[in-house]
């Protein structure tokens, strides 16, 4: 009754409520901002680590190489025995040069034949470099033969 009768007592109550409201508003805003920033950082960090994990998980070999004298095509069979899908480019150096840099897609566990057009003769020695788009490289050599 004393408080209700005293109008001066309302001011500190209202002031306290306003102060609390401001603190809560600013605090929740800061919390919301921090939350979104940390979530965003988490996602970015995970994506970066995932990229690195995929890069170290890549496993592939040049399983077989053959040269078709009639068509002038070097066939390179790449076996992706890792656990991630890959995209590769093939570069051929040595006695003759050629490349197929079209980022051939190879699903994991699959073998894919990649063709490289070049003109080679029997006995030519070739160095084959297969580079994945995650910058892993595999090398092979091949001497052009005919069965």
């Amino acid at each position: 009754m004393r408080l209700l009768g005293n109008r001066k007592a309302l001011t500190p109550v209202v002031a306290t409520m306003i102060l609390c409201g401001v603190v809560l508003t600013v605090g929740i805003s800061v919390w919301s901002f921090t939350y979104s920033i940390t979530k965003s950082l988490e996602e970015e960090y995970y994506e970066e680590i995932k990229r690195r994990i995929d890069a170290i998980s890549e496993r592939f070999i040049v399983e077989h190489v053959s040269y078709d004298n009639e068509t002038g095509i070097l066939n390179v069979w790449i076996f992706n025995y890792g656990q991630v899908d890959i995209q590769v480019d093939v570069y051929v150096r040595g006695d003759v040069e050629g490349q197929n840099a079209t980022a051939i897609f190879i699903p994991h566990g699959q073998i894919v034949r990649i063709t490289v057009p070049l003109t080679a003769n029997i006995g030519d020695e070739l160095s084959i470099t297969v580079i994945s788009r995650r910058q892993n490289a595999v090398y092979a050599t091949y001497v052009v033969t005919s069965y």
Partner: protein
Amino acid sequence: MPFMQLTLLRLTKSKSAMSTVLGMLIFIGILFTCVMPFFLYINQVNSLYDQTVVEMKRQDQDSSLENIEVYAYPLNDTSNQVSLYIKNQCPLTVEIVRIWINDQFYSYNIQIPGMSWNITDPLNVTLPEGDSSSFHVKVTTARGNCFSSRTNPLSYTAGSGWSGGGELSINIVISRDYHGTVTYNVKVTRVSDSSIICNDDVTLIGNTLSYFKKVGIEMPDTYNVKITKGTTLLKEEQIEVSWQNPTEWVYVNDANK
């Protein structure tokens, strides 16, 4: 006690105390709901990366441990079918995913437990009619290793049949026309001094229709090859091994169960 009462009195009278407490609570809330989970999450992701590194190292180690011997052989001297005898020489189970014959591959799926062997089903090859052809055979494992046949290159010449292998050896091929369990004895002796080069029992089980045995020899000479099934003599032949023809092939077909 008077100190506590004094402090509480001060706090209740202070207008800024409430907001200070709220601010502190919000700060602690941010710490517990944003910052700490963030560091815990990063720790988990780092653990995932480390785990992957360890797994890949282990996989590479397994891959480097793989060691198999592959022998491609024709079923008989004029056969257009080739089988592979694969001996796993490592403690790991090896999974064969492909067989290559020259530039053609056959998808395959056989698993060979550590230190055991397996024979593949016969694969058809195209034989030349008037000329000779050579066949290079290799297999690919699921761990990404390729192993060439030790009898490479297998050569077929129309009229004279199969040949192949560059080591001093007698390659014995036993084929049969029925299923079940049967034991053969392979005995190779040097004719000049009757010394025994090989005297092994070979047991074929289930639906394995052929078997390959490579008998390595030390020097060119004439050797007696004798293959028996129980007391039944299947084949006895004298083979001359020379540097010109270092690898000789002996074919035995067991038609009677």
